[in-house]
């Protein structure tokens, strides 16, 4: 433990700004993945163990598009869309066949999907790690805030993630389709009886969740190295986020993701070997004290 280092950091404005900014972007990526996970769970009632694979798909397809077009906008759009398309196909052809079956079947199907996706990435992109590099538009001098330096790309990520989260929240709570989706979560038979194609809706919601994961992957591509299997740690962390925030709650996911992001960035200074422990400790605490999560509606 390096508590002196942590205290030293907290005393310096520059260090605090740097840590907060890096904590925020970690949190924002987790928020995007976790809100997709939470959305799928809330509506379809299943936990998508393969969700990390869509984060990975988003990152790799963004890289592919960026290498072809040199446009980061195209990379973001392509990464998110590709993850969504794969997600819809996965839901239609595989996942929907195990709805209503026991957990074991759903788990095995997702396990198989992760194995296949990881190997496909190895075949298509190679087993070595890949770097995308910072897009030209953001290759500018970092912005100085209170003595600390924040890369301009961080600001962009923050805005993008918040916009996506806000859009999702507005879409679900303020639009007609959002109303139908909420009804679908509570009473699918009733929605079906109203002549609405529930299968299409399920696929759409699953796809939307995957788009969010893909967007997170695409946003992460310039600042993270890409490896086959990169989805797993994100999956675990975003699961922890959904447990802490409350399964099915988007605002809960935001709060918890920021909590985890900041815990990670400051924990990395204070207890470098124990960052994961800190995160798990936090989750265990929430589970014992408030099993339904900070903003969760009902006990799981």
């Amino acid at each position, binding site marked *: 433990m390096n508590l002196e280092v942590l205290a030293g950091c907290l005393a310096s404005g520059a260090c605090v700004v740097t840590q907060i900014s890096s904590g925020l972007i970690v949190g924002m990526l987790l928020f995007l993945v976790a809100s997709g996970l939470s959305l799928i769970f809330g509506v379809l009632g299943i936990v998508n163990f393969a969700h990390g694979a869509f984060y990975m798909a988003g990152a790799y397809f963004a890289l592919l598009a960026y290498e072809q077009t040199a446009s980061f906008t195209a990379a973001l759009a392509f990464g998110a869309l590709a993850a969504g398309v794969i997600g819809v196909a996965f839901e239609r052809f595989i996942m929907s066949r195990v709805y209503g079956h026991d957990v074991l079947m759903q788990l*095995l199907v997702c396990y*198989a999907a992760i194995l296949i996706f990881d190997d*496909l990435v190895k075949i298509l992109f190679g087993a070595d790690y890949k770097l995308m590099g910072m897009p030209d538009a953001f290759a500018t001098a970092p912005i100085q805030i209170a003595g600390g330096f924040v890369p301009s790309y961080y600001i962009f990520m923050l805005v993008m993630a918040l916009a996506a989260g806000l859009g999702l929240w507005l879409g679900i709570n303020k639009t007609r389709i959002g109303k139908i989706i909420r009804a679908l979560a509570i009473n699918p038979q009733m929605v079906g009886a109203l002549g609405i194609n529930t299968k299409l809706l399920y696929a759409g919601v699953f796809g939307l969740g995957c788009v969010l994961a893909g967007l997170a992957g695409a946003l992460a591509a310039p600042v993270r190295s890409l490896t086959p299997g990169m989805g797993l740690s994100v999956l675990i962390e975003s699961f922890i986020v959904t447990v802490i925030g409350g399964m099915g709650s988007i605002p809960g996911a935001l709060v918890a993701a920021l909590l985890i992001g900041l815990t990670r960035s400051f924990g990395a200074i204070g207890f470098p070997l124990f960052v*994961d422990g800190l995160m798990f400790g936090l989750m265990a605490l929430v589970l014992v004290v408030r099993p339904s999560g900070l903003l969760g509606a009902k006990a799981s």
Partner: protein
Amino acid sequence: MRRESLRDLFIAAVALAVLLVLPVLFPQPALRDFLVYVIAYGLLAMSLNLLVGLTGLVSFGHAAYFASGAYSFGLLMQSGHFSVPMAMLCALAGTALLALVIGAICVRLKEIYFSFITLAFQMFIHSIILTWVDVTGGDQGLRGGIPRPAFLGIDLSQAGTLYAFCAVVFIVCLLIMRQVWQSPFGYTLRMIRDNPARANFLGVNVLRMKLGIFVLAGTMASMAGILMALFVSGAYAEFAFWTMSGEAIFMIMLGGMQVFLGPVIGAFLLQTLNHYVTIYTEHHGLVLGLVILAIVLGLRRGVADYARDWLAARRTTREAAALEAKPAKKAVS
């Protein structure tokens, strides 16, 4: 002693005899190695099935205890202060304690949440193994080999003795687990699997029972890990990786979860599959994933379960006895 218990003991004795005779008849080292893997993974899958098949708790983090057994045993042996049996006992006890702490949190959650939180704790243990390099050797695994000093005239550094030791431990563990399945506790777990709320209304302390089997299953898994560590003379971070738990779940599904020995059949089938897949392709995950999808979406249950259901259906339709052996064989192949 009851007749059923005597029958179980008899079957166990025959199985042990077969396991011990096989390498004498076919002395290739490759067969012996293959059998040790089936024993270690079979034991892991059997212990997991105490949770999955018997209690209805689908743990996705069971390999954590396999790794805990392997690492704690390896470290104790490397310290030089312990004999093999002492180190085994300490490793089992240590893992039981670990399972108690993690289980106390996990059993509060139901269904898919339980799966996820067990996975999360397993990845936590995996990350500890990777970061605590001074003790665990990080991603290189426990280096320097695990010493196997002779005890009670048993010298485990000889390959034949080691194999026989593994076989005996395996059969003893199977007998213990058989007893769990057939005990009042085992039937209480079946109640919890079928209808936990009703079990609670019938005076069953559901959480405590779940925690009990969680610790027991974790301890059994650590025995599998100890055997593996003895055999490969080391312990590796992959032991705690999530794919290990995934494979264990698949072994259960492949073999069958409602028949006691189903997971061992699954372990045998998966080891055979892995053996051939690694010969023909480097894309092991792709092939394994496709096989899993085909079996889960096509067969929807394990080989042994399939055979059992088939037998039950046949018994009710009372078909001619002449057909008896043929379809049972077909189901296993």
